[in-house]
């Protein structure tokens, strides 16, 4: 019996999310005394395998097939299903990223097993499992038990700190060629358009967010300057995109991007639940607002009651002073 971890990588560079899933899965495989195995798919999988093998994994399964070079959720799901069957997988885990959840949704449908997405605290005991799952974007926590023959979970992204696991050194890499119908590649990626290079809202260590309180599109100039000086990016609330001050790609929230920076500087943002859902994974929050009752002020680790148009440029100036001195 095995615990399979689907690991995401970008052309051989293993994603943090994969290390989160492995860190999460390791104690489960230890306590249940079942083999911890990884699954890698796509271009560069061999390179990625070398990084993962030192992470305490017994076997890294690489799915090799000419139809698996590029990402296709359906065909990747079928490949994972076949690897799961081949290795008598009892538990299948990935990180709850968009891609992880998407592939596991296909795997679950193909295995006709329930899938618990975005879980914390998974406990397995024999044939039953219990897990805490987030709902309403994290404002509710639900405890669920299940006795499905194959337990399929994704782990809430950013809820686990990836820990480098001790290298056992005796892990092996196995190539597995699934039997795939080329019809499963019917969704074809014909072009990739990259708009942002370097840090994005999802990966930025600092996000400078602006809300209705910024007042105008031009008002964001000072937020841009601060973001540049501090090495972060600008985000915004829904009110801002509704007013056309910023594009939707900058929107943080349930109907936008979910961020997890070291610090979120939320200026002029009241913090409605829909926005909070996208910002709650931030490790620290600094709120700048004129309203002491604003949700964001009551939830922030540090809050300044004042005018963001004065405070933000003053921080930028302070940072510049330091840099020049």
């Amino acid at each position, binding site marked *: 019996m095995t615990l399979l971890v689907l690991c995401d990588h970008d052309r051989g560079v293993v994603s943090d999310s994969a290390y989160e899933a492995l860190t999460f899965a390791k104690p489960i495989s230890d306590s249940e005394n079942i083999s911890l195995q990884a699954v890698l798919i796509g271009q560069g999988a061999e390179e990625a395998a070398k990084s993962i093998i030192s992470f305490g994994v017994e076997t890294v399964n690489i799915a090799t097939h000419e139809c698996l070079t590029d990402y296709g959720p359906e065909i990747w799901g079928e490949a994972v299903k076949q690897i799961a069957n081949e290795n008598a997988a009892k538990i299948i885990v990935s990180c709850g990223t968009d891609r992880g959840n998407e592939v596991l949704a296909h795997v679950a449908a193909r295995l006709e097993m329930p899938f618990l997405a975005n879980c914390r605290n998974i406990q397995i005991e024999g044939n039953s499992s219990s897990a805490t799952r987030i709902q309403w974007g994290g404002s509710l926590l639900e405890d669920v038990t299940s006795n499905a023959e194959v337990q399929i979970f994704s782990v809430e992204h950013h809820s686990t700190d990836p820990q480098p696991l001790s290298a056992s050194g005796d892990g092996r890499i196995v190539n597995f060629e699934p039997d795939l119908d080329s019809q499963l590649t019917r*969704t074809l990626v*014909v072009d*990739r358009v990259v708009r942002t290079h370097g840090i994005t809202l999802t990966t930025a260590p600092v996000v400078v967010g602006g809300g209705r309180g910024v007042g105008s599109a031009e008002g964001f100039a000072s937020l841009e300057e601060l973001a540049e000086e501090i090495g972060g990016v600008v985000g915004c609330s829904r009110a801002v995109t509704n007013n056309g001050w910023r594009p939707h790609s900058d929107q943080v929230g349930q109907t936008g991007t979910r961020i997890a920076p070291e610090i979120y500087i939320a200026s002029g943002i009241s913090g409605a639940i829909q926005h909070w859902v996208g910002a709650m994974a931030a490790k620290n929050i600094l709120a700048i607002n004129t309203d002491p009752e604003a949700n964001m002020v009551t939830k922030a680790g540090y809050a300044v009651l*004042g005018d963001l148009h004065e*405070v933000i440029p003053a921080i930028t100036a302070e940072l510049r002073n330091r840099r020049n001195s």
Partner: protein
Amino acid sequence: MDVVVCVKQIPDPADPGELNPDTKTLKRDTKLILDESDSYGVEMALQLVDAAGSGEVRLVSMTPGGETGGLRTALAMGAESAILVSDEALAGSDALSTAKVLAAAIKRSNPDLILTATESSDGYTGTVPEQIAELLDLPSVTFGKEVAVDGELATVKRQTESGYDVVECPLPAVISVTAGVVEPRYPSFKGIMAAKNKPVEELDLSALGIDPQTVGWAGARQEITEIADSPAREAGEVVVDEGEAHERIMAFLDDLKVL
């Protein structure tokens, strides 16, 4: 071109109601509204049918209790009709059971395209669209921000972290639509009046030929043992700016070692 949009009726997020300690689910006796995430799919479907010059937008929804408030909103926007699958046995359905029910209802409608939201605001699983596609054996594209249809081919701009992919797939297909990518129209007064007379076909599980044992609590193979609010984040220090707040902020940022 006929488009089916899967829509969910949920409690108002601003006033989600209480938790039911017996079933460990949200009480749904408050008025249900159209999940805002779904209004984008409805709008996109209306635009695609307009562009095609013929066809209509139909809705498919599932709820244990037979509510139609959210459906009427989407009908008022311009959808022509709705299928509402309603059955007490549906309570407790997980994503796969939900997909099973919606897929069966979609089949009756035989559309050229199926649109959904990327995830519901309440359940928040985001796996139903892909599973509907699996059950209907149709291609699935998620996180669509732009959809264009040319004959039998759909071209989708699929949102990615750093930009977008252009994805092509044959129709019919199941495409999930990212929120915020179109501006959902407000129902006009005329639309609201017309919606009252638009057909909402209410079906139970037997009408769809679904065994009640395969859905709801019985089919989910899982049990909710507890549900609670997330622990609140503790408020930190609050200071009033008297011209020197930036210095305090610098000290705070220094402490966090983010500079």
